[in-house]
């Protein structure tokens, strides 16, 4: 089931990506309305990361095209921000937290002008939003996984974009941090920003997101939570991972109850 959005901020048309002649993403065609927190879900190897890389033009699609704000990416780059998986960089790189966050200002400032007071203020404010203000001078090699993740988020916030693509921003962080990041994302949504988030955990996804994109190499479904978060679509997306589906269908029948109540899960 693919529900197209009216006045979409993200339009993906027949997007396919192949690696070594094997399709990893097959003819994805969907659109996303503005001001939503969107979860991109699917099993491992479903092409979730590939999808956002293809949208950001980091991998070459074998067919299809993408429009953001009704324009090609190159015309709207300052309005678009990307948070790669934290594993994609070398955290032993000799630099500190503030320098990484300031990288988020290159899009606005360019490489060849020095930082203004405003750039630094924005960078510090973004660090504060992710609760990392006390770490600004810390070497990035000394950060925990969750702190690395938050530094990447802060860098992305420093871009002051309108549309965010985040690859697994909740991976490897503790529950308290997850809550504070979620709060931040909700705040951004209420400011009219659109966030597309690759996520791996179905249970929390149900709570967090209001629009879903379900992938399993091909696009299984895209639409608002009420329309697409159901048993058939989950089954189609995840195939035979029954134990998981059992838990989820329990959750669904008890919709309205607190989702993380451990006793319900047992």
């Amino acid at each position, binding site marked *: 089931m693919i529900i197209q959005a009216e006045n979409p901020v993200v339009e993906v048309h027949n997007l396919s990506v192949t690696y*070594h002649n094997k399709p990893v993403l097959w003819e994805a065609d969907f659109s996303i309305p503005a001001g939503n927190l969107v979860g991109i879900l699917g099993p491992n190897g479903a092409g979730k990361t590939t999808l956002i890389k293809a949208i950001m033009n980091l991998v070459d699609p074998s067919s299809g095209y993408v429009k953001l704000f009704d324009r090609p990416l190159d015309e709207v780059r300052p309005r678009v*921000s990307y948070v*790669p998986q934290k594993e994609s960089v070398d955290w032993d*790189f000799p*630099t500190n937290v503030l320098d990484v966050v300031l990288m988020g200002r*290159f*899009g606005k400032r360019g490489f*060849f002008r020095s930082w203004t007071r405003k750039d630094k203020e924005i960078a510090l404010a973004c660090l504060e939003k992710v609760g990392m203000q006390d770490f600004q001078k810390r070497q990035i090699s000394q950060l925990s996984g969750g702190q690395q993740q938050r530094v990447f988020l802060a860098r992305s916030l420093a871009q002051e974009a309108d549309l965010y693509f985040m690859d697994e921003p909740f991976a490897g962080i503790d529950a308290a941090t997850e809550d504070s990041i979620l709060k931040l994302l909700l705040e951004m949504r209420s400011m009219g920003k659109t966030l597309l988030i690759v996520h791996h955990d179905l249970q929390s996804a149900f709570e967090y997101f209001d629009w879903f994109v379900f992938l399993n190499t091909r696009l299984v479904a895209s639409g608002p939570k009420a329309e697409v978060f159901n048993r058939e679509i989950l089954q189609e997306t995840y195939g035979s991972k029954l134990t998981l589906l059992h838990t989820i269908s329990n959750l669904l029948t008890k919709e309205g109850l607190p989702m993380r109540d451990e006793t319900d899960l047992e």
Partner: protein
Amino acid sequence: MSAFWIILTGSLVAASCGLLGCFLILRRMAMIGDAISHAVLPGIVIAYIFTHSLDSLPMILGATSVGLLATFLIELVHQKGKVQADAAIGLIFTFLFSCGVILISSWTKHIDLDADCVLHGEIAMVPFELWITESGLNLGPIAVWKLSILFLIVVGLIYVGYRPLRLTTFDPQYAAAIGVSTGFWHYLLMGAVSMTTVLSFESVGAILVVAFLVAPPAIAYLLTERLDHMLLISLLAGLISAVGGYALAAALEGAIAGAMTAVLGIEFIFAYCYYVYLRK
């Protein structure tokens, strides 16, 4: 006086190589210097075949373009051919080097050009190749002039390109996502490495070039966690090895290039001990 020229030559090579080497080791491409220094051989030979002279400029142009070609082929084989990066380096540089060897052996039989004279410069010979103007004015060794210009180019590149080089080295995906051409900076860096390698091993020999590309940055990497400091420390480590290496060679009456490399090794041991026992 010749001691001064030799130390100055060593320092200039160490400085240019050390600065570029910092970015190479952070990109996990340390051995690309070794690869390029061999891969450029066909470029040098082709430049010679076309110009019939051993002048530097055509050689540098030939070598730099083949150096870039080598980097491009390595990327291509690695990205599209599903070959590991280090295997791709080994594959491409031996191939290009052998092309150079074939060209030399079949086209330039009667000329004094062989793999040795291209690859094995001797730093002790630097003070004897002087630039003397027509009026008889002695301007000092030619190598020092060439290497000074090279050093200025490298410093200029890193001064201007510090931020984009740092960003594309640390997080190329993010750089690409904000619209930075990672390819441009990659090939600019590799062009500088090719040029540096060629000019340097013509004066000091291939082994010393590889040592200067890898050892000072590796030493600096152990001593600091800031990229700007890493660049400065790697300059300093190179300078110490140029001075110390000359002194060591003089004391032992041994090979200068070997002594400079040995001093780098000793510096590395000290840096390693500092890192393991004091910093952690």
